[in-house]
């Protein structure tokens, strides 16, 4: 809490209602293809997931698996750790976006000696 100030309540107070109203306005206008008041455009978004190939030892995943077991969380067989990249694209064309993302994965995001990648357009 900041000294001398009343903490702002978001749960159910005016702040949250105003926030939701802003978004409602944004979507209503977005549907008519008009710029939002907070100047956000609808861009194409994508998610790239990079995972270790099968058979490659993943000591980090193993350590996490062990920690989950020590927390007595039942039913977990194994854990493999990977990376997620959330990417905004300038181009709204799906096919060219997939090409761009594939190139990004092959050239930088994944080391294909030990990693696989998957591209998902959101």
């Amino acid at each position, binding site marked *: 809490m900041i000294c001398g100030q009343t903490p702002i309540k978001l749960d159910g107070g005016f702040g949250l209602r105003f926030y939701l109203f802003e978004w409602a306005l944004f979507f209503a206008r977005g549907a008519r293809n008009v710029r939002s008041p907070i100047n956000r455009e609808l861009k194409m978004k994508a998610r790239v997931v990079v995972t270790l190939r099968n058979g*490659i*030892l993943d*000591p*980090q995943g193993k*350590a996490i698996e062990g920690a989950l077991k020590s927390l007595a969380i039942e039913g977990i067989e194994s854990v493999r750790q990977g990376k997620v990249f959330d990417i905004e694209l300038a181009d709204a064309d799906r096919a060219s976006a997939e090409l761009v993302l594939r190139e990004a994965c092959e*050239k*930088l*995001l994944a*080391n294909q*000696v*030990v990693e696989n990648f998957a591209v998902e357009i959101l």
Partner: protein
Amino acid sequence: MNAAIILFPGSNREGDAFRALAASGARPALVWHRETHLPPKTDLVVLPGGFSYGDYLRCGAIAARESIMDAVRAHAARGGLVLGICNGFQILVESGLLPGVLMRNAKLRFICRMQHLRVERNDTPFASAYARGQIIKVAIAHGEGNYIADSETIARIEGDGRVAFRYCGANGEADNPNGSINDIAGIYSKGFNVLGLMPHPENLVDALVGGTDGRGLFESLATFARPAA
């Protein structure tokens, strides 16, 4: 022997490499990573240890894709010498100059200690001052030194005798600190003009700070007289 030590943001062993090269009679120069060309008459490129780009994404991944690395690749393709130490080794595998990949140490811990190595061969520009099979004591300091490659690549490296150094104990017994396949601590390129290794020979060139077993590598390089092109 003119040596160019490439300085990336996050490199931190460039001073040690500079001192080791100068003490052996080579003429080292520091080259900033934004340069697009190597200094004229460069015989040897050194990629020093450290944490280039904070080890972001994967160790060495971002440094490996800088334009200075195109110049280093061209230098290597002409038969020029390239030495990558620790993070420099990681940059070499990420840039495709050496095969394989360096993964997180098998026991997950950053290892900083003294380590014995066996010199696998001494008929290369990097190891002529050592005896074949000699055991040397140098420092290791890394979190990602676990060398991995697919079985075909390993068979090819071993078949061609491209393993430069292997981890071992003081008497040559097995002692693998990080889980590397076949105890590999360093490998050569096909033409034996590119060497990548995880240990730090540049830190063992002065008796005052722990030993001189690393000198041989720099003395080998300083006495090697083949122009790059």
